Each structure stands twice: as C-alpha cells, then as structure tokens.
C-alpha cells in the first residue's frame, strides 16, 4: 500500500524504508516514524477498540498521553500489550496487533456492548454484580475480564535483560524542549554536572513539532544543534528515550531509559531498558504541556484528535490523517494547526472557534462562535455537523478533526511528594503549587508559560537560580529570537448533549456518567474517579481529567479549583514490570551460596535444598534407592553404627577477640562464659531483649582473648548485626572486636563411633586425640595432613562421639575427598540435612523449628541457663508475666501410641479425647521424623506444663490432613539420654 497521506519534508529519513505489519496487513514507513505516524501515513485511522463498549477508536495524540491507540507490539515471548502506537518507534519488521476486538478490528462482535450502553453506565459493575458474593470470583470477574480489557500477556519468559543503574548530578533537567535545552545550555556552560532526560528519541520537545523559527533557524535545526552542543560537553549527559517517571525523597528521581525498544531485538550484550536512580542536587521540570480536548457528542471517532497532534504529525512526520481537516478550538493555538496544515499543502481546512471574536484568516475558513453538534462515520470520521452562531446547522465533510480546548501544564512530577497544583485563570488550567519536591523548580509550559520565548527564558532563568544555589557562576547565553504569543483562551469544556459525549476515551467515561455519579452522591473528586473510572488505567487521565473536573464543577455549581484534583503518583507513564525487577529474575533474585564440598557432593549425585541463601546436600542417593527415606535412613544408621560426614560450613562463624571478649559474650549469651577455660567449648543461648530466644550456638575459647562463636545457618547475619549492636551501642568501651568468618572456614561434622579413628588418620601425629587429652567439648588449633592449619571442636549435634573440623575454605574440597578416602575402611557415609535432622530429633536438640521467635529458654527446658548473677540481653524481660506461668509450654518428645502412626509437624496437641477446638489447644508439634533406630515416628513439640506430663497419653490432631490419634508424652531425648555416646 502507498503512503497516501504522506506530505513533504518532515523529520523522517526517507532513504530508509521499513516494512511493518499491523494486524494482517503489511505497510511501509520510514526511519523516524512512530507506529502511529506510519499508520496515519498509510491512511489507517482505526487503531483500537474501546475498553468497555468496543467502540472504534483512532489515535488521539502524538505523544505519551495517548489513551486510544494501544497495541500489542512484537510477538512471541517479546509481545508487549498496551503499547502506545504514538511512542513506539518504527523499525523494519515491526509487528503490532490491535487489542480488545474479536474477530477483527473492523468487525468486532463485542460492539454489541455499545448498543447496550444504557446498561453499562457509571457504577454498572458495582450495581449489577453484587450478589451472590461467591459469583464474583468464579463467574462475573472472568466474563468481565474477557469482555472489557486491554492487551494480553505472552505468559512466556521475557528473553531480554533489564538493568538498573545509579547516576549522580548537580542538576537534572526533565524534558528536552525549549525550556529544558535553555536550562541545560546555561548550566552546562557554567560547569555544572547536568543530566538532560527526555522521553522522546529526538531531543527538542515541541520545537520538533512546530513551525516556529529560532533566530533564523528552524525549530528542529536549532534543537539538533543545541543537542549536539550539549552532547559534546563532558559535564553534560543527554539521555533521549528516557522517561523520568517518579520524583522521590531527597532529590532522587526514577528514570527509565528505553535502550533497545526501538530495535527488533537488543544488540548483543545490551539490555532492553535501564531503570536509573538519579540522585540530583537540584532538578528543573521542563515537562511541557498537554493539549486537552473539548467534549461533544460522538467525539471519539477515528480521525478526531488533538489539534496539536495533527500539527505535530504534519510538521515532524510529514503526515496528515486526511486531506480534508476541520479544527474545533476555544483558543488561538487551534489556528496554528490550520495555518501549518495549509503551509504543508493540506488546503481544505475549516476552523470552528467557540469564540465569537475568533481571529479570521484568508488561508482557511473560520466559523466564529460555532460548536460541533454531531459527527459521522462508523470506522472513521466522514462528516461533522456544526451549530452555527446565528442558528442553523452546517455540515462539513472531513476525515480528521483537530480539537483544542487549551493546554494543561504537565505538573505530574510536582505532585509526587503530595504537592497540590493551583488553578491559574489566565491559562484556565492547573499550574504547580508552592510545595514542590525538594530541590525542584519548574520552567516553561510545565509552569504555564506557553510561548517559545517564554520557555527559553524561564528555562535559562531557572538554571541561573540553581547555579547560584550550587555556588557556581552562571553564564548568560544569548537566546534566539522566537515567537512570544500570549496564550489566549476562553474556557469552553463541552457541548451539551443528551447523548454520549466522551470525556475519558480510555475508560469510556461520558459526560453523562459524571452527572450520574454526582446524582448518586459520589461528589469528592477521588470518589468520582473510582466510581466512574475517570482518569484510571494506562494514560491516567492525561487528556481527560480537566474536562471531567470542569463538568463535575458545572453539575455541582462550583468552580474547578473547588472540585480539586486527584493525586498524581509515580510512574508518570506506564512502566514495564521487567525494569523494576532488573536482573533479579529466577535464581538471580538473590545470591546462591555453595558450600566448599558442593562440587564433590554433585559428583556423588546429592540432592540439594535451600537453607538460607545456601544450597546444602539434602541426601545422597545410592544406586537402587528410590525414595529419600531409604537414603536418609541408611545415612542415619551408618553414622550411628560407624561414621558419617556432613558439611556444616553454612553455620555462621563469628570471631570474637579482645581482652573483654569473655565479658562481652557474658552479656550477649544468657548463660555464663566468663569462666569458660581456654580449650573448651560451651553451648550458648542468645535471647532478644524481650526475653524470647534469638539463636543458639557454641562459643569455643581458643585463647584468653579469642572466641569463635557459631550461629544457626539462617540467623548468621542477624546475630552478627545484633552482636555489633551490643558492642557499639551498649558497651562501646569494651576491648572487643568482631568479624564474620563464615566463608573463611570450611567445616565438616565427623560423627559416629569411628570418628576418632577416622580423624586419627588425618590429624597430624603430634596432636593427641585421645578421650583423656581431647574430651567432649574440647577445642584446639592443630594441623592436619602434614601441616595444614585446622581447628578441631569436639561437639556433637547428632549425639554421637563427634568432631567438627575446620580448614581454610580453599582446602574444603580437598578435605572432604581426603576424609572420604580415609574413611573407606570404616564404610564412612556422607549424610545430608535430612539425616542430620533425624539424628538431632532423636537426640532432642532444638533448631529453628523450636527457636521460632515465640519461645523462651523456659519453653525449651533451659530456663535455668538464664543466669541471674549477671547482666545479659533479655534476662530481665524473660521473667515478665506471661512468659513464666506454671502451665507454660515445655519442650517434650512425642511418640505414637500405635507405632504405625505418623506424628506430623504442625499438628496440635489436645488432652486425650478432648474436642479439637482452639480453646482445648495444649500445644503443637515442631519437628517430626521417622526414627530408623527406634523403628517408629517421633516428634518434638511444645506442650503446656509438658515436663510434668511425661507418660501421659494425649490427643494429636491435624484437621488439615485429617489426622486424629493418640501420642505419648516422653522425654525429648529419645536416644542415649545420659549422653554416654558423645563422651565415649
């Protein structure tokens, strides 16, 4: 198809022709086109269907405020719904599909909604789909979602990368139009570090869309020259395709740079988009203004647009939506479109001006004091009906109608810190209020200064103000001569009609809906918005809000400023979720930490599980084993019978040094550490200040002034943070230093009756491993394998004779291989987290399941460990009423009366035969497993006064799984209660 509506000149590169597809049709366009301009060039006005009534809609704007022309851009995994055709840069091979229509854009079966529109007025959903409540989720919502909607997601993984970055500057300038360019030049030439960001791919803002000359140059030429000048300054960063979408605290701005959106696929190694966090000392908002429509009957036909958009398409993209064009305006600016069109060779132009004193022209026909009464054309405008000033109707044939109701400053970012705009009568619009985000000033059209000269001047002046704040000397640059026309506007919001006149085209809100909302007492502007959906969705009412407020004010008999505005919030324009996620996708959302034996464990075919950030071996399946329990049971039995090895590197390690190290630990742990001899390890229980248990672990005293503290895997970071808090904030004068050494040491548990024999083959001969020389709870620094420094701890989580051996991390892989090799003669077995868990439950040792943030030392049966002879964190509040009642929960063991029954974690405990109600609740099960040593399931749990109820048979209920049977309360130490094994 030919580009039948293409005009001469424009800022497109005709030497590059791109082929693209919209729905099933192929078209041609040029480099520099947007999807919207290329479609218009090809005579396509129908671009979408409306949200609710499926009315045919065309493009209304030439910028990011577009409500109608939303398409699904690209296909496959890269498909992006709700993309504005007005901002999508054309590239060769572009694919776009229209949305919200079936079976085709021109024939949409759901258009029947439009005929039924009297049923779908404001509040329709709320009134119709009220009852029964259960129907909402299953029946109503899916139907509504299918019928009313926007584009659809690809539901596939996005193949492109999104990135995040940080930028810092003295001055951020938001918008690269005349005000922004003047500000950037002034600040840049004066030596400030400047970032100039503009959402467009061409710097220049409206200079590229207008026909004004600047000092003898065309607007676009001047903008290009200034853009190049700025680009050459080392202290200025010009960022096109970058939308500053939010103003945050302390001069921080969020900006999205669309690095590759204009390409079919991103260049190798380049992200699709970057979310920049820009920290600025000062910012100047030069975001321009948006033209607002006038509301009249059937004002939504394809071909009816902002007057300024028609001019933009003609001047920048050399496109006219039609050869016969009418303009409907209430201000002088509308006439510019007419004269620009005539200059471009579109000479069948009529202007209908609501003002009786409208300027006349010899180039085009002017109807002063007329209004538009009706329009015609189902899939595109064909004719308008004008109500003449002295009565009567005139029909005008036209394929496009430009509407100009005046301009609204783009104040959005000034409101992101709860600032409220104020009404300005001269422009009949809202301008930024007093309370701006910290460090922000506003210049140009965004501040209600609409002339090009005014924009240049206020931009340069704003920069000068900023420069003196920053202590820099501002240079005064000559400004080019350019137009300085006053904004002459006579407010005119809507042509009254009994039928439907569209205020918000994206949400299908009519003037009638606003009146209805008022009638039904939704009078606050915030209620109006939510009841009618005016100003919602992707365009956030950029073109519709003011008309809505004006009509509301009219029905309420008040003024627009009295009606007020809704709050603008970030983001300024729709922002892809992908850019917020950045690289934090899938396994990249957080680091994955691997233990030193990970590679070795992989070679053994280990199954891994997440523990905190770590991946730890869960079990090590042997050939023929089909169920994890088989592997786990074997690992447990073999460890208890001979020897097993487990990587325990992930447990937190904190090195504590200094002459006050013991006194410090005395404060941090509830039990005493002052008298722990050198060469000994002690179990330590750490409380929060509120008396609840924070964590447990061991502290080994390697020297008078040197301890090694261990923490649970999950709490390693939190405990370190807490210990630093105690050190710096509570005892700043103690001589003690802390450092986390978790990743500095590879540590393995070697457990089982043969563990000593195995270690004997590893530890260097000078070191005496005998029970007498190195008893239970001993620790030492030693050497292994002929001189490698190592630390040895005789501690046991499994309940067996056991050691933990630590070497510098880089030797971890070698050590596990050496240990396994040396252990062959004992049939050594590696064991994973499942076996570790079984053995600790058999032994009655607590883990995070028991230290669950609600339990105290008393609950855990360690109440007497809380020393009353010294100060320690949490000791005072551990005695507060409510934590020390006689029937407090106590840790107990549980075994099923019928040995076949499981005892699932999470189940609740009741007095035997009591009804399973919350008021009868006596406690709960925290940890459970099958004990291969005992041949039945066992569990740990908390039971009211449990320590005094050993032997009692109680009820166990799990309503979720339907379990309800009896268990016996026993000691939590199922195995070797006297601890003979670990002392062997």
């Amino acid at each position, binding site marked *: 198809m030919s580009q039948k509506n293409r005009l001469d000149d424009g800022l497109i590169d005709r030497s590059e022709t791109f082929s693209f597809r919209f729905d099933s049709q192929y078209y041609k366009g040029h480099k520099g086109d947007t999807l919207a301009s290329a479609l218009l060039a090809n005579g396509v006005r129908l671009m979408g269907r409306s949200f609710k009534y499926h009315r045919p809609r065309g493009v209304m704007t030439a910028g990011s405020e577009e409500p109608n022309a939303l398409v699904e851009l690209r296909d496959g995994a890269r498909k992006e719904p709700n993309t504005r055709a007005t901002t999508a840069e054309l590239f060769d091979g572009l694919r776009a599909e229209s949305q919200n229509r079936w079976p085709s854009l021109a024939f949409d079966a759901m258009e029947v909604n439009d005929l039924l529109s009297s049923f779908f007025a404001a509040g329709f959903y709320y009134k119709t789909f009220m009852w029964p409540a259960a129907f909402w989720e299953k029946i109503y919502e899916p139907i509504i979602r299918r019928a009313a909607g926007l584009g659809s997601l690809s539901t596939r993984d996005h193949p492109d990368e999104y990135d995040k970055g940080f930028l810092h500057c003295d001055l951020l300038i938001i918008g690269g139009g005349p005000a922004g360019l003047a500000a950037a030049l002034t600040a840049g030439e004066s030596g400030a570090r400047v970032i100039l960001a503009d959402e467009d791919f061409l710097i220049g803002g409206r200079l590229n869309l207008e026909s004004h000359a600047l000092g003898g140059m065309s607007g676009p030429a001047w903008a290009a020259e200034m853009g190049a000048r700025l680009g050459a300054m080392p202290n200025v960063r010009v960022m096109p395709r970058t939308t500053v979408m939010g103003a945050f*605290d302390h001069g921080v701005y969020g900006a999205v740079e669309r690095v590759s959106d204009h390409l079919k696929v991103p260049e190798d190694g380049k992200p699709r988009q970057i979310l920049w966090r820009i920290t600025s000392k000062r910012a100047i908002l030069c975001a321009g203004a948006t033209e607002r429509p006038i509301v009249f009957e059937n004002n939504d036909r394809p071909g009816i647009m902002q007057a300024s958009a028609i001019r933009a398409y003609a001047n920048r993209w050399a496109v006219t939506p039609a050869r016969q064009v009418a303009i409907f305006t209430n201000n002088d600016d509308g006439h510019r479109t007419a004269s620009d069109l005539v200059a471009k060779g579109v000479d069948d132009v009529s202007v209908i001006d609501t003002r009786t004193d409208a300027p006349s022209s010899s180039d085009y026909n002017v109807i002063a004091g007329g209004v538009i009464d009706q329009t015609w054309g189902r899939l595109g405008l064909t004719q308008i009906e004008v109500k003449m000033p002295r009565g009567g109707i005139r029909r005008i044939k036209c394929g496009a109608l430009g509407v100009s109701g005046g301009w609204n400053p783009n104040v959005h970012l000034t409101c992101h810190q709860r600032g409220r705009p104020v009404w300005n009568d001269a422009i009949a619009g809202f301008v930024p209020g007093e309370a701006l985000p910290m460090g922000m000033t506003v210049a140009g059209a965004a501040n209600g200064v609409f002339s090009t000269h005014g924009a240049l001047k206020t931009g340069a002046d704003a920069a000068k103000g900023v420069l003196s704040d920053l202590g820099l000397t501002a240079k005064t640059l000559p400004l080019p001569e350019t137009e300085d026309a006053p904004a002459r506007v006579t407010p005119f919001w809507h042509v009254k009609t009994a039928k439907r006149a569209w205020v918000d085209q994206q949400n299908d809100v009519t003037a009638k809906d606003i009146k209805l909302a008022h009638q039904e007492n939704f009078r606050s502007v915030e209620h109006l918005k939510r009841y009618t959906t005016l100003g919602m969705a992707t365009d956030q009412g950029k073109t519709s809000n003011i008309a809505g407020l004006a009509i509301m004010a009219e029905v309420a008999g008040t003024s627009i400023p009295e009606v007020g505005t809704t709050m603008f919030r970030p983001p300024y324009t729709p922002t892809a979720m992908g850019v917020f996620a950045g690289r934090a996708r899938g396994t990249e959302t957080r680091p994955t930490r691997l233990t030193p034996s990970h590679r070795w464990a992989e070679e053994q075919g280990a199954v891994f599980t997440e523990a905190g950030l770590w991946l730890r071996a869960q079990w090590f399946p042997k050939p023929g084993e089909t169920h994890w329990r088989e592997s786990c049971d074997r690992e447990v039995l073999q460890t208890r019978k001979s020897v097993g090895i487990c990587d325990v590197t992930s447990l937190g390690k904190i090195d504590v040094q200094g002459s006050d190290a013991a006194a410090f630990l005395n404060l941090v742990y509830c039990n005493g550490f002052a008298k722990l001899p050198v060469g000994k390890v002690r179990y330590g229980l750490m409380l929060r200040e*509120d008396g609840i248990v924070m964590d447990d672990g061991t502290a080994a005293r390697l020297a008078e002034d040197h301890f090694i503290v261990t923490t649970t895997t999950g709490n390693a970071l939190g405990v370190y*943070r807490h210990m630093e808090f105690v050190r*710096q904030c509570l005892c*700043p004068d103690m001589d003690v230093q802390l450092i986390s050494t978790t990743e500095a040491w590879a540590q393995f548990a070697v457990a089982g009756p043969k563990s000593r024999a195995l270690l004997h083959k590893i530890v260097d001969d000078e070191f005496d491993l005998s029970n007498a020389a190195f008893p239970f709870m001993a620790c030492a620094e030693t050497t292994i394998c002929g001189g490698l420094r190592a630390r040895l701890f005789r501690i046991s989580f499994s309940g067996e004779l056991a050691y933990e051996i630590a070497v510098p991390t880089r030797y971890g892989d070698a050590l596990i291989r050496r240990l396994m090799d040396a252990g062959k003669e004992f049939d050594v077995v590696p064991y994973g987290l499942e076996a570790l868990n079984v053995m600790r439950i058999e032994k009655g040792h607590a883990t995070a399941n028991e230290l669950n943030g609600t339990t105290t030392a008393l609950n855990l049966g360690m109440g007497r460990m809380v020393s009353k002879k010294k100060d320690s964190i949490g000791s*005072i509040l551990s005695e507060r009423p409510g934590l020390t009642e006689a029937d407090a929960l106590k840790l107990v063991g549980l075994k099923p009366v019928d040995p076949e029954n499981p005892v699932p974690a999470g189940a609740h405990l009741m007095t035997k035969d009591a009804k399973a109600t919350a008021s009868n609740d006596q406690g709960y099960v925290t940890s459970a497993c099958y004990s291969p040593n005992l041949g039945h399931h066992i569990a740990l749990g908390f039971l009211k006064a449990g320590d005094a109820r050993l032997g009692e048979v109680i009820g166990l209920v799990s309503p979720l799984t339907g379990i309800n049977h009896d268990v016996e309360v026993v000691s939590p130490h199922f195995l070797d209660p006297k601890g003979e094994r670990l002392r062997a």
Partner: protein
Amino acid sequence: MIITHPILGPRDSSEFVYLGDATLLDRPDWQADDALHQFTRYQHSRDNPAGLHRELWFHEQGDRSWLVVTRDTVTHEIMQVEFASDMARKERS
C-alpha cells in the same frame, strides 16, 4: 535517601539496615529495683514523632558501623549522622 556517613561520606540508604529509635542506646540498669518496669519501657515504649527523629541504622554493606541518624520523618531529610558508639559513650559519661 542518602546517608552521609561520618567517615565514608554520602552513601545510598540501600547499603543500610534500619533498626529504630535511638533510645535503645540508653539501656536500663539490670540491678535497679524496678528493672522489669524500666526494661519494659525501654523495649516497648517509643515516641512516634512527625518531625525530627533520632534513629539507629546499621551500615551492613559498608563498614558495619551503627549510626545515629537524625531524620525528619515528614520530609525524610537527614540532619545529622553520628557514630552510635560515640553517642553511647556520651550517654554513659
């Protein structure tokens, strides 16, 4: 937000972990007659001012120092940043 660390200069707040009211520096005497009452107040009673607030931040992804940050809770403006250890010593003396 940018927190100007006394030694390391301006740092992004994402490097820090927030704890809360800096009155936590003023831990009661465990041997006081009304220690339980004092500790209960220390642990649970906090002012919640709209305006200046002294609060504890931990430079976890930095030098691991605890800082007392004076911040306006209305504007998030940060007025002062001090080492918590210096403040704790001052409280003690």
